[in-house]
């Protein structure tokens, strides 16, 4: 079907959202809580666009709005840019010391009301990506708790989590580096729990926790060798080289 974004006519696929279409066609729409695989959270509100369907104009979140025939989308109207600026300003009030938020603040040239900057910096912008990552890639050990401005991401009772395997997927997807991971020579501490790190038997680098290995073994139903991703790739590449040698 035909959809217009910023005046340009595009071929849209049935069932996709405006944001998915834009990403496919390399049209820039800012989004903080969007990542491939976790696509319609609708939390940050940065991806707002103005649409026209018929006569009426509306502002919608592009990550959740499904494409329709003859939809017209504007991604950077004056009104939209002002809203995005305000959103960044609101985030800055909560996370003034966070370098990622500071970068956004500079980019949007915000004018922050100093009176209302929170005294204690909080890096989390509540995008929810860590919770989704833990649910899909980990063990569903963290979630959003409380509501309103008390909302935060934590383990139950802020306790050392019984379910967490220390895989670090949450920290990897976090756009503001809000999740604290402390590593020593042999340990990784995350979500108030200390994990034992496991080293690659080939290169000797510490690459994951024992619990992650055990969890994967449980899922696969077989034992896993302690080999890190880089070494695994190298082994696979070498295997390919060998088999090509035999062919040619």
């Amino acid at each position, binding site marked *: 079907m035909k959809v217009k974004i910023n005046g340009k006519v595009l071929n849209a696929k049935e069932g996709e959202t405006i944001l998915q279409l834009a990403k496919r066609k390399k049209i820039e729409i800012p989004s903080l809580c969007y990542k491939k695989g976790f696509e319609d959270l*609708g*939390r940050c509100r940065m991806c707002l666009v103005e649409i026209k369907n018929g006569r009426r104009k509306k502002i919608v979140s592009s990550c*959740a709005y499904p494409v329709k025939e003859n939809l017209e989308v504007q991604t950077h109207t004056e009104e939209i840019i002002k809203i995005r600026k305000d959103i960044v300003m609101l985030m800055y009030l909560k996370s003034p010391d966070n370098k990622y938020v500071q970068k956004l603040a500079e980019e949007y040239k915000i004018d922050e009301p100093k009176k209302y900057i929170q005294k204690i910096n909080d890096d989390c912008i509540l995008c929810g990506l860590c919770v989704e990552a833990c649910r899909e890639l980990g063990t569903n050990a963290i979630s959003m708790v409380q509501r309103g401005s008390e909302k935060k991401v934590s383990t139950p009772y802020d306790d050392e989590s019984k379910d967490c395997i220390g895989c670090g997927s949450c920290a990897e997807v976090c756009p503001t580096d809000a999740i604290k991971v402390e590593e020593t020579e042999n340990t990784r501490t995350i979500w108030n729990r200390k994990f034992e790190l496991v080293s690659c038997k080939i290169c000797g680098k510490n690459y994951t926790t024992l619990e992650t290995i055990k969890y994967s073994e449980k899922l696969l139903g077989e034992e896993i060798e302690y080999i890190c991703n880089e070494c695994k790739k190298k082994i696979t590449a070498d295997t390919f080289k060998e088999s090509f040698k035999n062919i040619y």
Partner: protein
Amino acid sequence: MSSNRKILVCCGTGCLANNSYQVYEKFKSLTKEKEITVKPLVKPTGCNGLCEKGPVVKILPDDISYFKVKVEDVEEIIEKTIIKGKIIDRLLYFDTNTKTKITDHRNATFYKNQHKIALRNIGEIDPSKIEDYIERDGYEALKKVLFNFKPEKVLDMVEESYLRGRGGAGFPTGIKWKTCASYDNFPKYVICNGDEGDPGAFMDRSIMEGDPNTVIEGMIICAYAVGSNQGYLYIRDEYELARKNMQIAIDSAREHGYLGKNILGSSLNFDLEIVRGGGAFVCGESSALMASIQGKVGEPRAKYIRSVEKGLWEQPTILNNVETWANIPPILLKGPNWFKKIGVKDNYGTKVFSLVGKVKNTGLVEVPMGSSLRNLVFEIGGGIINDKEFKAVQTGGPSGGCIPKEHLDVNLDFDSLDDIGSMMGSGGVIVMDENTCMVEVARYYMEFLSEESCGKCTTCREGIKLMLDILTNITEGKGTKEDLDLLIDICHTVEKGSLCGLGQTAPNPVKTTIEFFKDEYLEHIENHRCPAGVCKNLTSYHINQDECIGCGICAKKCPVDAISGEPKKAHKIDQNSCITCGECYENCPVDAIKIGGGIVES
């Protein structure tokens, strides 16, 4: 005396809070003991609407209504009225408008102007007895529908009546039902939104407590029309009596064949389940409500695909408000043309309002759509308490706007209220007087919304918090002109950027109070003075030396002995000792005490 003698004792939550249940029990026991030729039936009923004057006791067919009845009065009522047929003057209703005592409450100004459809049975029946409901045309509409109309005809009738949702949005119910019926996707669900969360609104509570069967009947009719077999009643956690009475009604309805398999012998299967809320205002929003029923936290979703198409468990779902459901049986029984004779163009039927705040007659009122606000506040409501100056009403709760004096003659219907930038909302009408601070009202609503926000989206969660912080500063005397500009500025982003109705309408109380009462905001900011005398940091009391008659009442009332003066001579308040409690101001018989500003440390 006819054998139909009845004593109806109001047992709605309001009267229960005033010990009406003990009054009911006393009537029951004494009528058994005493020598009465024909024993009257003693029934507990739902809310009669005049909660301030409760407990309310009505005697039929004498048509005598007694108010503020205490347990000690019961024996006298039986002796004098039931046995001897005499009226007890002191228990009669005193109409403040006509300044007369009224025997039959229906003649009181409060009740005369009302037209009851949704509330037609409340106060007349025992809500736990389905027989009472059946006696008053209960389930007749359902019978008519099941055995005389095809589902399409039901949909046509509801559409033709142009019944608009009573939950606040005013969306045409018929269109909603027709759209849902058009999807060939089963199962379909029917939901009653009983999560009445607007502070100051208790219409739905009274209907669920006082006439649960009308809601049930409405839902069954809808199920027949759209093709559903399962319904849910989402009832707020705080409404324990409503849940109890609803469950009794569901159980009785099942016993009588109105719910379950093959209803009344037809091919319709439909049943209802009560789901209890958990103390979250946001669950009144339809997608959050459905998430809650599904066992999740009450976070809304962007509704670009409407819930009539994909709602509960992604199936076609009808969600309507309690009062909307209550209107369905009469519309089907008497026909859409009957309904359209009431109200005004495109706004047919009636609306139930909870009239509360600084008004003399607080309670529940049902009037035709298009009645004037002035009539509601001054006729039915009897005017402002202590005859103070009217300042504004708030309609629509935290999503609505305030209506000032200049719009007192606005008509109470969806479209007229929209036109002046306000909204109908669920029906809460909060009356405010000269001693209500509109800045504080805006702050109060932002505080409420900030706690109730689900926290999912940045604009609502952080935006409302910022608005609350600004308003708190203003009410404490720390506000600046820049603060006011920022407040007005951020409203647009919160409105346009938020995911659901809670965030989108949150700026309304702020926008409307600034629009109509900007001077009051400026007075707080520039002169550090709260003209209403509410914001304690910005209030001081001063006795006007020329007007004071030296009666000394203020000095007696003062809890900290801050007032001094000789009899018949002008008194003075010691500003250093004064704690600005306002007792002197409230009690001065000649209004000689004026409100000055506060002294704020920067």
